[in-house]
């Protein structure tokens, strides 16, 4: 009993003594998602940096896999804005976003500036060989994804058994539909999810280092194309009717939010409307974060300070 008395008393004293401490203005709190690929994190943090350093906002980040889960969270009002949506991965857009025929429970705000392209890639040594490393070309006639069938025994793995192994999209939530694409194209490959973006790149780099043949999903803008010499394995040209047995279309990335958040934070919307990030700018920051393993906040702050002329134009 003594304990309860003390606890209550201590709590009372704390709240009386320290209650004056809170400094965040009401209505200046935002929740932004930390998605599960570095590019999206970087994009969002450039916006967040301006919000926190020049607009007195307090931003909380929530780690979530990109995909329908986040869209639903924004619609429900748990998260305020989304900084980098790749339309081709998100069939849910046609349910929610008016421009895509949805019910308007989410609203497109502006382009992000990032123009994405996705596909399947293989190291150059798989097709041409590399005499300096003593690697023979195992698949000299590999041009399209359908060609893979004749070389599948070179691409086997623990998990795939007799079939070939595709290092597929790392996250199920991204809805890449790799296995469906392979099956639809009649390619006898098993799509393996590595579980996280980092594990995905690590697996590719490890295989490259050992000179093993592999085929992997990748997208631009990304540093991986600077680190490894990769060749695209062609998919049939994008055709909406045949999806997912086709290539991805080019992705004009965009920012969106829920109508409630847009109404509540007009200043933020004005910033989001002017904010643009180019592929090259983003790729540079991704490289610092992924390859040099630096803290995202540190990298973004450094870039922002060096590029004041860029972010000044974003200010509302």
């Amino acid at each position: 009993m003594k304990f309860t008395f003390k606890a209550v008393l201590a709590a009372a004293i704390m709240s009386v003594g320290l209650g004056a401490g809170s400094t965040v203005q009401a209505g200046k709190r935002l929740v932004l998602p930390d998605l599960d690929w570095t590019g999206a994190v970087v994009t969002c943090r450039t916006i967040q940096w301006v919000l926190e350093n020049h607009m007195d906002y307090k931003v909380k980040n929530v780690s979530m896999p990109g995909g329908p889960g986040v869209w639903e969270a924004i619609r429900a009002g748990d998260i305020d804005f989304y900084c980098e949506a790749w339309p081709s991965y998100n069939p849910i857009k046609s349910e929610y976003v008016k421009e895509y025929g949805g019910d308007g429970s989410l609203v497109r705000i502006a382009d992000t500036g990032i123009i994405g392209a996705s596909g399947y890639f293989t190291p150059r040594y798989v097709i041409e060989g590399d005499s300096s490393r003593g690697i023979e070309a195992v698949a000299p006639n590999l041009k399209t994804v359908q060609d893979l069938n004749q070389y599948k025994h070179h691409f086997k793995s623990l998990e795939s058994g007799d079939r070939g192994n595709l290092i597929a999209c790392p996250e199920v939530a991204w809805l890449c539909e790799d296995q469906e694409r392979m099956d639809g194209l009649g390619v006898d490959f098993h799509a393996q999810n590595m579980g996280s973006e980092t594990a995905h790149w690590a697996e590719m780099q490890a295989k490259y280092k050992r000179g093993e043949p592999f085929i992997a999903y990748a997208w631009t803008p990304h540093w991986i194309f600077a680190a490894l010499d990769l060749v695209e394995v062609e998919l049939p040209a994008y055709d909406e009717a045949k999806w997912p047995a086709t290539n991805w279309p080019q992705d004009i990335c965009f920012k969106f939010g829920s109508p409630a958040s847009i109404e509540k934070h007009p200043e933020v919307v004005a910033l989001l409307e002017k904010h643009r990030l180019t592929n090259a700018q983003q790729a540079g920051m991704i490289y610092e974060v992924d390859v040099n393993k630096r803290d995202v906040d540190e990298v973004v702050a450094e870039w922002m300070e060096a590029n004041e002329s860029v972010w000044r134009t974003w200010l509302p």
Partner: protein
Amino acid sequence: MQDSKAISGSTSTDGLWSEYRHWLIGAVVLVISILIWKAQGGETVFPESWISAFPFADKVNEFDRWMRPFLQPTTRALGAGVTWFYEYIVDLLIFTQWQIVLVVLVLPAFAYGGLRLGLFAVAAVGSWLVLDMWDEAMETLSLMCISIAFSAVVGIALGIGASQSNRLETVIKPILDTMQTLPAYIYLIPAFFLFGIGAPGAILATVIYALPPIVRLTNLGIRQVPAGIDEAATSFGATTRQSLIKVKIPLAIPAIKLGINQTVMMALALVVLATFIGAPGLGDIVLRGMQRLNVGKALEGGLAIVLMAILLDRVTHAMGQEQQRTDQGRTQIFRLFPQSLESLRLIRYLELGIDFVWRQIGRVGRGATHAVALIPCALIRTYDTDWSSRLRDFLLRHSFFIASLVLIWVMVLLDAYLDIFGNFPKAWEYRFRTPVNQYMDVLVTNETFYAITTGIKKGLYFGLINPLNIFLKGLPWWYTSLFFVAIAYLVSGRALAAITLIGFLFIGATDLWAFSMITLSTVTVSVLICFIVGVPLGVLAAYSKTADGILKPILDTMQTMPVFVYLVPVIMLFGGGQIPAVIATVIYAIPPLIRCTTLGIRELPDEIDEVSDSFGASVFQTLMKVKIPMAIPAIMIGVNQGIMMALAMEVITPLIGGKGLGLEVFTGMSTASIGMSLQAGIGIVLLAIILDRISQAWTKTQREAMGLS
């Protein structure tokens, strides 16, 4: 043993049969399984028509979509209330000067646990500052405080209710039993879909998850008050309610405190885990570190969590102790380090120094209390001398508390009017993630190391996981189901057999058969490895004091750590994938097996040694032929706990590449498909209940067969 059997030779065939019956039946079942497995072609899958007749996930999703417009406003309003409360506390902790918060957090440790625990608290709280995780640690603490406060209020109320009404108790008991079999993660699924991401879902899930121990112990504590005391109270004219409030509940306080201690540990585990549904705090650091393979960062977060877990455990444990130990009145000399280091002069001086400082602080504290007591006592003395001296005594008895209040007040005033406290100096911050990451890079690219870990991985995969996986997947669904139903019927009875049948039918009809077989084989392999490694370790600890001395603190720490932390070293050394998931599961599930084995062997009567000694058996023979067989019921309890922990881990390991039902839960959550998450979650729950009941029933029959009650 051999001799005794030879004497009763007439029944030797019967004896052989009863001794080897289990093996024989096992072998027959195995042979039949393999025959069916070989004979069966592709017809192993659950009938397609049954699956399409039971579109559970679609129906749930449909229902969810239909309910949402009505349900979501309500849950979000409730969530907003919780969020407001949470943010108030977090802001209080974060925006207040760190020096003041540090003092407030550390003082209870000094007050209840004495100097040693106090110093540990300073180190633990300081580590969050040094590692630059102050905000995250405060977020986790706030989530914990709110959850435990709610949980304690609801739990104690329910416990008191259950203690007063036998009917309520019989209703609550099976619910609590089931709640305690469920893996922690399961609680997050409904919380996520009802309350969305962030703090509210995490808090509400934690409140429910942490209820059982406090309800149980409150109920038990009140029921255990001797009837005589109750009678005495009533005979003095107290009503039932008066007797309950004035007599029974105060007597049950120690039990309730124990319940809170257990609740705290469970709450921390789930609050850390709740980072999966977007809850803030230390768990988030570990999660991000693991997703980015930034092992150093994950390790830092893990360390902060472990320190918090140990601190909270020790402080709430010390609070449960009857008398306070401020160490001020004691005579013996303070020890910081183990006694074996006493000979080192440096350490002696250090200890003496700390002790001296501590005594001086105590003196100052008493002085401050005297000063505080001076004025009110003087005022009261003018009216009533007796009251005045009583108040004085009371204040002096609580000199630690009064002095703490004075200290906090002085700090608050200093902060408010003089602004002398600064932010935590950047120069004092230290992050070891970069050296760890660099070291890991070197280690992982090292050819020998790569060969060793790959060897272990391949050995496990080709030797155990893959064959078992193929075997289980290759068996027709009806055979596996019937096999478990038969076991359930044999060890327990019709009720369990029915539950088992329904469980397997549900798993099959929701098209989760393949996933659940992966889960089953992962759990089997993990528990098998736990058994192979854990039992010898347990035996070793039972025989050797040194081994016990080394193992005990390790196991203690392992059992206070939140599940999440186990993934960090595994991903460091083995990378991601299904096999590392098994390794993490083994590390997590092994402590109960070691503990139960040690306990089982130790609690055997000493006469056994003497008897088998007199028969001329060696120590080893006694162990193998007498002690281990007799300890089997105890070991089985460990196996049961191991199975449950392995299943709980099943929902965590997808983070490092685990497959099976757990991954389905994850995928459902990140693709906003409540039906998918829910059916996989129910699948895990069903497996947990079936395996738990079967292994418990089996342990019970074993115990009865050995004449133990």
